[in-house]
């Protein structure tokens, strides 16, 4: 069930799957939908789930069938994420038309065919923000700056190169928007430098005249439904705690994709969906795939989070971890043992580690850390 009007509508121009195929989001998603339909899976659009309960009863609504009351053996949560807003950031100033989140702007431009402005400032350098900078530039709009509060960009390096550098769009690191100006329409924003604590530095303010402000300041896994169900969430990811089968804290309830944690590449999203789907099917068929041996995977040095948070340690598994800060030439250790070397880690880019062999956990936990490699 999807609340959207068409499949893949939340990734309208996501022509950036890591595997190199060149598809738009809707094209990419439609391939899976078609193959699911061919296998006899009923796929409902414009269907909004209103409630899901512990006993896997789901209340949903759509225009064709009215209220749907479904009982399932297994449930997969795949609600994705939403964008952080101006309200969440608390940017002071007026409330004119012309302020949009990057994903909404993308939808409006790529699906609906309309633009919010022609002199654009982008706050935040997340991937969607970077892609939208290029999108606006290609539409003949002036992108005056991409403003990023951190000392490094929030999106993938290749997006910084291909979306900003190639179009001559300035990236202002350690800057932020401190005020919004305008009456009915946005007239400008004040941009200022920030100090080490990310607070604006007095005296550095500059006013930039613009008629659109696009926010790419983070994504939040959309877990209101999960929370209502009683699924336990990880405060670091904002998503359900899952094991290597993508099972949540509730038996027979699985989660995958951006509702678990925010991904950078669609390939990882797909992989998590395949695991969740397979696990849910097996559970529904009566196999008890719930892990017998449960090791808790905990973030150690320079690791913000690790997914899955629970592994058996007995089967091959892929761990996704997010670094806290950028570092070059690092060693990734799992349970004290060296697992991989990486040339560099950056918070925006997930680190993926495949564990082939048995993992020994001390007292049921495995710590994952990223440490600087000694130069040889």
């Amino acid at each position, binding site marked *: 069930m999807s609340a959207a009007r068409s499949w893949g509508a939340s990734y309208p121009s996501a022509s950036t799957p890591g595997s190199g195929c060149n598809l738009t989001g809707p094209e990419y998603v439609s391939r899976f939908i078609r193959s699911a339909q061919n296998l006899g899976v009923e796929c409902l659009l414009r269907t909004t789930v209103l409630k899901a309960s512990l006993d896997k009863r789901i209340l949903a609504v759509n*225009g064709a069938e*009215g209220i749907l009351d479904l009982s399932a053996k297994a449930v997969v949560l795949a609600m994705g994420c939403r964008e952080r807003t101006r309200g969440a950031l608390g940017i002071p100033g007026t409330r004119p038309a012309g302020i949009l989140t990057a994903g*909404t702007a993308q939808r409006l431009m790529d699906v609906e065919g309309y633009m919010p402005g022609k002199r654009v400032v982008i706050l935040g350098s997340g991937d969607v923000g970077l892609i939208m900078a290029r999108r606006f530039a290609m539409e003949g709009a002036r992108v005056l700056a991409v403003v990023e509060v951190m000392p490094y960009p929030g999106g993938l390096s290749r997006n910084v190169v291909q979306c900003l550098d190639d179009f001559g769009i300035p990236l202002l690191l350690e800057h932020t928007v401190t005020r919004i100006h305008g009456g009915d329409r946005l007239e400008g924003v004040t941009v200022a430098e920030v100090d080490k604590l990310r607070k604006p530095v007095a005296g550095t303010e500059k006013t930039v005249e613009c008629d659109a402000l696009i926010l790419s300041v983070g994504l939040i896994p959309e877990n209101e439904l999960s929370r209502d169900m009683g699924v336990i969430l990880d405060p670091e990811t904002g998503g359900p705690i899952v094991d290597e089968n993508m099972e949540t804290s509730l038996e027979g309830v699985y989660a995958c994709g951006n509702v678990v944690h925010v991904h950078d590449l669609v390939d990882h999203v797909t992989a998590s969906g395949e695991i969740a789907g397979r696990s849910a099917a097996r559970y529904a068929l009566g196999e008890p795939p719930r892990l017998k041996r449960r090791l808790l995977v905990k973030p150690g040095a320079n690791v913000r989070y690790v997914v899955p948070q629970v592994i058996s340690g007995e089967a091959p598994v892929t761990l996704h971890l997010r670094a806290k800060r950028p570092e070059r030439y690092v060693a990734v250790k799992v349970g004290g043992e060296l697992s991989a070397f990486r040339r560099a880690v950056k918070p925006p880019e997930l680190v993926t580690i495949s564990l082939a062999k048995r993992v020994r956990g001390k007292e049921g936990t495995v710590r994952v850390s990223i440490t600087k490699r000694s130069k040889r």
Partner: protein
Amino acid sequence: MRADVAIVGGGIVGASIARELSRYELSVILVEKEADMAFGGSTKANTGIIHAGYDDAPGTLKGRLCVRGNALWPRLAAELEVPFERVGSLVVALGGEEVRALAELKKRGEANGVPCLNVIEDRGRLLDIEPNLNKEAVAALYAPTAGIASPYEMAIAMAENAVKNGARIVLQTKVTKVVSKAGAVRGVQTDKGLIEAGCVINAAGLFSDEVSATAGVGHFKIAPKKGEYFVFDKALSGLVRHVLFPVPAQLSKGIVVTRTVDGNLLVGPNANSVDDKRDSATTSDGLEEVFAGALKLVPKLSSQRGMIIASYAGLRAESNTDDFIVEAYEEPSGFVNVAGIKSPGLTAAPAIAEMVAVMLEEAGLELREKEGFNPHRRAIDRPVRRQSVAEAEQLIVRDPAWGHVVCRCEHVTEGEVVEAIQRGAATLDGVKYRTRAGMGRCQGGFCAPHVIRILSRELGVPVTEVTKRGGSSRILPYEVKTLLRRGENDSPRS
């Protein structure tokens, strides 16, 4: 255009008066400069509290009208199907000296006729009824008649009901002058022409001093006072049960922590004088002040900054007379000022309307009750949120649009959006105030594209002409590719 009574201003006060006068055999026109009711400033951005009436000194108009208004609200809310809850308020004393102030407030309230006031001096009991209150609270004044309501929904509902009973509303029409001749009011001059009327009621809020001056009545000035607010995610709605006030300061009732009727948590306002009547910008200092103020009452909020979904500022239309101004004049006769309606204006609005009706009668207008006056207005159906499965099914069978959820945070359906438009919403904010589409945690990220498309379809205007709140507030001024075709410096498509 001609009418017996012209009302200037479509805020809560103007709407209350229009609805009250629509009971009588009178022709009534309400004139509003903005694109919708409650768009002006104070009505859309206040705390949404129906005050008990202990704040203002006995003998003041504010004190009297607040208590009367509070008593009128339950019936009015029921007749107009506007959400209103008598949740009760607590004025919280955090130290010995503040306890004395509570006794003073109680005395004042009782003199004003506020029922059931009671000072709770048992901390245990206080924390029982308000578990997340600051543990240092020593006592609180409990006023069970205080409540919460949605100010813009009430203004819109009253306007709808007034229209149903024969009143007319003209939007996007600015009154430039009150016209009088030989000491008597003749009507109002607007930017769209003259509206003749024997009675003119000035309910122009922030601009009431300017309107009054054009009638030759210039004894007061509006000095706007800004108040800033935070709105928190609904997940925190259980954090407080009552409207929580600090012990009031000299200039305002202080920074409040309250639940809203829609289930959000709301904190604010501070109070800062501003020169510009259109300056509803939030400031970083102001927002910090508001957050710090809220922490004094509910320290637990300190870890909940991430749950803030919106901030906004509103202007109080405060006059330099220190009290509400509800006055008729010998010259020009037929002119009534309803000005300086700051807090508790939302509470008092229905009582002000009653008072204005009496003043008009005293001024010689005949108030004959209308035979077919219908006091009821139906709220827009909310199949997914408020109604039973059977009711929802019925609506959806009749029209599938009632099963299409367009706003996933607030579960607003396309049916609701279409009905809001049929009832007069012509802008994104107009739809938002009537349905809550865009008021949830994603702040319109998901639903704005849908609502814009529905507005364009229902109003028969191009998407490029759909506005946030009228005027030049177009949301999507350009079609893609037009900048490439026309060159960057061309003016927007119109």
